[in-house]
């Protein structure tokens, strides 16, 4: 049986699934039930400074987009950090950690960008016995307007500075949570690395307006006729998060920087994808908010079954296994030639591939008598769109042309050797191939 035990920057947990800092981790009552359900760890809902707690809006905070059968695909929120008293949170964190020594309890923190503020809160957190801290530099709304959250996360110098303060003040591992609302995720990650961060976690939510009420002409969720941008998360943001995780994993300037993968993790498969792209563990928010704590059962059993099938014993054994295969477009093999092939036995004759290919510039599918759809190899550029729109799994496949055969589209023999754009004759700046 696969061993799911995880050790992330020295923080141990029975599995690599942590609940991300968000409402599910806002109080002991929740966190304890999450642990009972089987979650490996939590990042406690972000704590703020001592003093009167922040206030949230009293109208709706969340908005959503849905797929079939109202399946929630994306969630947007305008919620702030914890609105409970700092000392209540600290007391509960301490109790929970004591009761659940084998689970990871990390505390998310967001205080103003002043050294004094960080120096003040860190000892209080340390005193709880928590396993680590996560610096919330990601929240795109509300807090950023007060010079915190994403306002810090968007300025690499601030990240480095605050990270340094924290490293100098506490013995606890420091995880820096990054905002995706920047142009190149590597810069904030490098700053965290330079500041001495033990790890980065990403992504926080993506700035978004989820929908517009067309009766009130106001963004949703609408509060008394107005709406403001919020943070987008859930399954819809996973591709963005995966790319950012891979970017950091590949960056030669942050070698081996541990990454906690966040953003749209909903099933074991999502987790396995994050981990193979370099994440050491994953954090989950929207999926738990949508389905409740019980989804952890599917996540752990799925991951463990898959690892068994693959003969992978430990989670650490496949961290980053897909990273070497993430390359730049210019290095893709242009001599890898495929053609779409429609399996007539499983085709249900819906014609979606035809409409897609016909209206997407390739005209490479023929509609024959009796609604028979066939690929015209002379035209097929192997774009994969027909595969993507076909409702039947595996009905259309991309078949590789054997080296040496002639591609009927170009009339050229398929080259057996690897050849990419950098040396392609059509590339004006091609590096001349060695004679």
């Amino acid at each position, binding site marked *: 049986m696969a061993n799911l035990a995880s050790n992330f920057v020295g923080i141990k947990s029975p599995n690599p699934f942590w609940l991300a800092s968000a409402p599910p981790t806002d109080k002991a009552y929740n966190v304890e039930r999450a642990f009972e359900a089987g979650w490996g760890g939590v990042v406690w809902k972000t704590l703020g400074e001592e003093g009167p707690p922040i206030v949230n809006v009293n109208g709706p905070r969340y908005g959503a987009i849905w797929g079939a059968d*109202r399946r929630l695909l994306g969630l947007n929120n305008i919620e702030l950090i914890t609105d409970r008293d700092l000392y209540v949170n600290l007391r509960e964190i301490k109790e929970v950690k004591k009761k659940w020594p084998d689970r990871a309890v990390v505390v998310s923190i967001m205080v103003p960008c002043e050294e004094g503020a960080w120096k003040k809160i860190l000892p209080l957190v340390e005193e709880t016995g928590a396993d680590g801290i996560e610096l919330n530099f990601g929240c795109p709304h509300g807090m950023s307007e007060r010079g915190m959250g994403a306002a810090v996360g968007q300025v690499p110098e601030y990240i480095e500075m605050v990270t340094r303060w924290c490293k100098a003040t506490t013995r606890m591992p420091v995880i820096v949570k990054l905002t995706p609302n920047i142009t190149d995720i590597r810069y904030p990650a490098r700053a965290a690395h330079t500041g001495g961060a033990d790890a980065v976690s990403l992504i926080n939510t993506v700035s978004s307006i989820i929908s517009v009420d067309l009766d009130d002409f106001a963004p949703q969720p609408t509060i008394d006729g107005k709406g403001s941008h919020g943070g987008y998360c859930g399954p819809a943001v996973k591709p963005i998060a995966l790319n950012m995780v891979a970017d950091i994993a590949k960056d030669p300037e942050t070698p081996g920087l541990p990454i906690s993968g966040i953003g749209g993790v909903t099933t074991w498969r999502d987790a396995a994808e994050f981990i193979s792209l370099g994440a050491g563990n994953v954090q989950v928010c929207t999926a738990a908010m949508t389905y409740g704590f019980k989804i952890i059962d599917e996540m752990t059993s799925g991951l463990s079954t898959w690892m068994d099938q693959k003969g992978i014993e430990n989670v650490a054994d496949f961290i980053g296994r897909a990273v070497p295969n993430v390359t730049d477009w210019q290095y893709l093999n242009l001599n890898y030639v495929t053609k779409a092939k429609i399996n007539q036995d499983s085709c249900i*004759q*819906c*014609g*979606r591939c*035809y*409409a897609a290919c016909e209206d997407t510039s390739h005209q490479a599918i023929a509609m024959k008598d009796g*609604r028979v759809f066939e690929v015209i190899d002379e035209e097929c550029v192997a774009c994969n769109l027909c595969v993507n729109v076909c409702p039947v799994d595996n009905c259309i496949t991309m078949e590789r042309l054997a080296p040496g055969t002639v591609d009927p589209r170009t009339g050229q023999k398929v080259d057996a050797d690897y050849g990419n754009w950098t040396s392609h004759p059509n590339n004006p700046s091609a590096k001349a191939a060695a004679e």
Partner: protein
Amino acid sequence: MVNSVLTPGVTSSRLSKDELAGNFSDLHPPLDGHEALVAADRCYFCYDAPCVTACPTSIDIPLFIRQISTGMPESAAKTIFDQNILGGMCARVCPTETLCEQVCVRETAEGKPVEIGLLQRFATDRLMSEPHPYKRAAETGKQVAVVGAGPAGLACAHRLAMNGHGVTLYDARNKAGGLNEFGIAAYKTVDGFAQDEVDWLLSIGGISQVFGKRLGENLDLDQLRKDFDAVFLAIGLGGVNALGTEGEEKDNVDDAVNFISELRQSEDLSKLSVGRNVVVVGGGMTAVDAAVQSKLLGAQHVTLAYRRGQEQMNASGFEQDLATSSGVTILTNVQPLKVIGNGAAQEVELGYTKDDGNGLELTGETFRLPADQVFKAIGQRLDLDDSGLELAGGKISVDESGKTSLNGVWAGGDCASGGDDLTVTAVAEGRDAAEDIHDKLMNS
């Protein structure tokens, strides 16, 4: 409730009012908003979709389903009504299992088609609770007589009125609707939908109704041709085929269509009589409807007797399942030989049949079934004498656009040649004839 299913003979009140109300409630209850979205989402928006080809009125099904899924059921309904103004009734009565849903690619893929009929009902119900969506074109000054106010006549009248012509709609009965009102099984069109639909359709304006006028009796085709610029005949199939067996004249040997018509017009189903033991002769939709509704009224034993094999039954697999699940026994390869009884029916004698390729033959073996009531449902025929119209296969001969052999006379629906005898086919033929009439009137 004075009687029960066990009361001998033919009698009313076999079931309580509550039981009757339950039995005759909506066969396919409507989808609610969420169910409709889920059902709509299953549509693949096929290219050149096979369902559209299978629909006799060629409704753009993928389009209307997409309109439902984007929260525009009213636009969806418009898409439907543009092709089929009786889309509301068709959503309820079309044998979709042999039309659009049969060819749905998800039927091919999973044996579970998109629920096109129910989605159509979802959309049309929305728009029909609003004012009539079509406006008439400017008056053309042309007058058209439409004879028969069933689905074919109504569809034709609506399209003509929309194109700006004046329409006079004649019917032999005292109500419009044709078999929608008098024939379709009660549980397919509940809560007076047929009349509501007629009212909604006629509210386009430009159509005047004249009841109690029967072509061939107090309405003359030659006179109509003189008085109007065009005539459309949609009189359905008024005649009922006889069994031709001994004892057919006995009491309680009735036409299934009359029984159904009485049932449809009944204000109080507990006053309607039905036998304890009922035998229905036939194998089509009418036979199934008579059998099922007898059972629902409280008959104890209902047998449907069909003279050929099950494969040849006109009733679809769905209809047959409906019958058997309602408790009807279906006997195939049996033919009635005589009705036995002293004044009123008591038993039916049937003989087994076989077909070894030389046509249907009796095997010689016979048996008897108790029968307080016998319904004949072996087909309807055209009831029109000496009209001067050419016939084909016992129906008024028409070309593709509904033209008959007489100049200025069109026909469509069950009374005309070609097409299945279905509500939706009648609508398509009425609509197409109207367009052809319009074309003729405006371009000659």
